């Protein structure tokens, strides 16, 4: 479903260049739940931004369902981000002066979903991530970090993307809520055939993953995988 080929992203900082992503290649089949671990600053967020078409690689390519991102014009990349990708940012990146519901409705508005349909779906998603219904209409800057994180997850699910890229989605959650989110993601990959790539240090989330990667010195290495029963073919 997603195929990464010799991906490189380098940054110039001062007089030296750093390569947080330096020749990464892998493939993920449809409905796979994969995890990435790595030290802070190892380039995990950088890799996710390349996969989500937020950034362009210095070299290499990402091929999604046979389409090369490198070949797509900006308008098509926008469409790709809107339709195919659900991104959960490490820093949530919600719009602070909008309510929780409005934030979840935004991607649907850009996709042209009717107002009634999008508000119904937004409420449903917020319930799925266990956000207290009385907080649905509350402005983002009056929500706690954990609450914001769940709104960010709900927003990523809004347009039923085929690839979810989540950067530490359980980092701010208590164990119980975290377990619930893990169960939610795992059911999405299993039941809705959604491909999910999570950056996480959460052991219980990593344990649920079909495949586990480690990013080190710009390179990705796969840890001994524990194949899930009846994993669908890619």
């Amino acid at each position, binding site marked *: 479903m997603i195929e990464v080929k010799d991906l490189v992203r380098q940054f110039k900082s001062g007089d030296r260049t750093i390569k947080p992503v330096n020749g990464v290649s892998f493939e993920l089949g449809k409905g796979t739940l994969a995890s990435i671990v790595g030290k802070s600053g190892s380039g995990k967020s950088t890799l996710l*931004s390349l996969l989500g*078409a*937020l*950034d362009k690689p210095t070299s290499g390519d990402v091929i999604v369902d046979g389409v090369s991102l490198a070949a797509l014009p900006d308008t098509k990349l*926008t469409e790709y981000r809107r339709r195919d990708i659900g991104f959960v940012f490490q820093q949530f*990146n919600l719009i602070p002066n909008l309510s929780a519901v409005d934030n979840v409705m935004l*991607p649907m*508005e850009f*996709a042209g979903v009717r107002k009634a349909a999008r508000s119904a779906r937004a409420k449903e998603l917020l319930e799925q991530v266990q956000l207290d219904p009385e907080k649905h209409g509350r402005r983002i800057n009056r929500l706690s970090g954990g609450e914001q994180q769940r709104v960010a997850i709900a927003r990523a699910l809004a347009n039923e993307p085929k690839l979810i890229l989540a950067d530490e989605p359980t980092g701010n959650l208590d164990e119980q809520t975290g377990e619930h989110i893990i169960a939610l993601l795992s059911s999405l990959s299993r039941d809705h055939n959604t491909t999910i790539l999570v950056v996480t240090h959460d052991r219980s989330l990593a344990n649920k993953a079909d495949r586990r990667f480690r990013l080190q010195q710009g390179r990705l290495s796969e840890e001994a995988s524990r194949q899930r029963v009846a994993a669908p073919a890619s």
Partner: protein
Amino acid sequence: MSVLARSVGNAFRNKIRTAAVVAVLTVAIGLALAMLVANQAVGAKVQELNASVGTVLTVNPAGGQGFEGGGEPLTAEQAAKAATVPNVTSVVGTKALRMRTETTTASGTSGTTQTQGGPGGGPGGQAATAVTTNLTAAVDAGTLGNRNNTSNGTGNGATGNAAGPNGTANQTQPAFSLPITATGIEAEVDSTGKALNITSGTGLGDYKAVSGKALLGTTLAEKNKLSVGSTFTINGQTFTVAGTFDAGTAFGNNAVYLTLADAQKLANLPDELSTMIVTVNSMENVDSAKTALQAALGSDKADVTQGQRNLETAVSSLNSVKGISLVAFIAALATAGLIILLIMVMLVRERRREIGVLKAIGAPNRTIGLQFVLEALVLATLGSVVGAVVASFASGSIASALISTNTTTTAGTGQRGAGGFPGGGAGFPGGGPFGGAQQLLTSVTASVSPEILAAGVAAVFGVAIIGALVPALLTARIRPIEVLRGE
């Protein structure tokens, strides 16, 4: 949540800043609207004044006007030439005669001296020819007439004294009576080109022919106990009253109209004209026709004027006020646009990361751009609403302030010109209505019409959109990866 709702919400995100921006915009927009209203009011006044002058041009001999000045008289040949000028619809020649009452003339020893430049006869008398009549003027000399008479008389007295016997007659002149103007006309119009208002009897019929008939002003007919069918004499020749007319002014009604041919015959000057009244086909062509006419007749032969000359200065100073207010309107409008441009550029920079978020979750560039343009329009709307209220209160005083500071000098001269006419407080008929340029200028009232305000607000919105377009286009350059950068 739609784009519009988001824009409105964003406009009020920082309430103190929004209030400050709206306040500054209000000043700029309010000023722009007030200037537009002032501009329209002055423009309307100019049009009204131009319309009051109408489409009539007056041609006088170069260097002379009425009973004053010098130069060569106009001729029938020139009238024919004037008629060929483009856009000229008609040319009416007139011949003015200055009639003195016979009794007054009789008191002087020599009638011929009188015609050379007697009291009130006016210096030169080039275009008008003096004749005698048995009619008595309907206007009493009064203070103005006598003063005028004395001042003329002093110069004359010197000659009179040198001549000897005439001196005494001039010094003891108890009953001075005003002259009466007899104008020969080629059509049924007064000497300013306006149609005559016949109150009894008929017109003169064929105005081109010698008829021996005359039209008398109502008060002149009354004073001399004449009515339609009665007769009177000019230079001993008998004329029948064909009708009476009302010119609306006491001076205008102390006049006689003859056919042009009769007047030329009385003066013994066939082909000679005092003035030509030239009618142009439309208001827009008056200026060009005036220039063409002047060129055709030659500036050394004829003076072409449009209506009242002090009216012209009034119009030109009003026009400069109009120009000033237009410049101020554009400047204030540009200021409003600049304020919007700067504030929106600032907002785009400030919300860089947020724009990155919108792009990262798939917002198309045009949606984001539209959101910023709409936000600018929200600010412009607030500024326009408050600005329109301010403008509707301020435009009246702004307009009058503009006019009074710009035209006091002109108005002063205008008044002096009007008051200083020779001949007993009376110039030409029709000279009265525009006596005070000041009066006419202060009568410009800047009434705020909704259409003009709407047009002004539309212009503000146009400028706001232009001002917001630049920052909106800047948002297109922001890349979604901004979302990962720190605040």
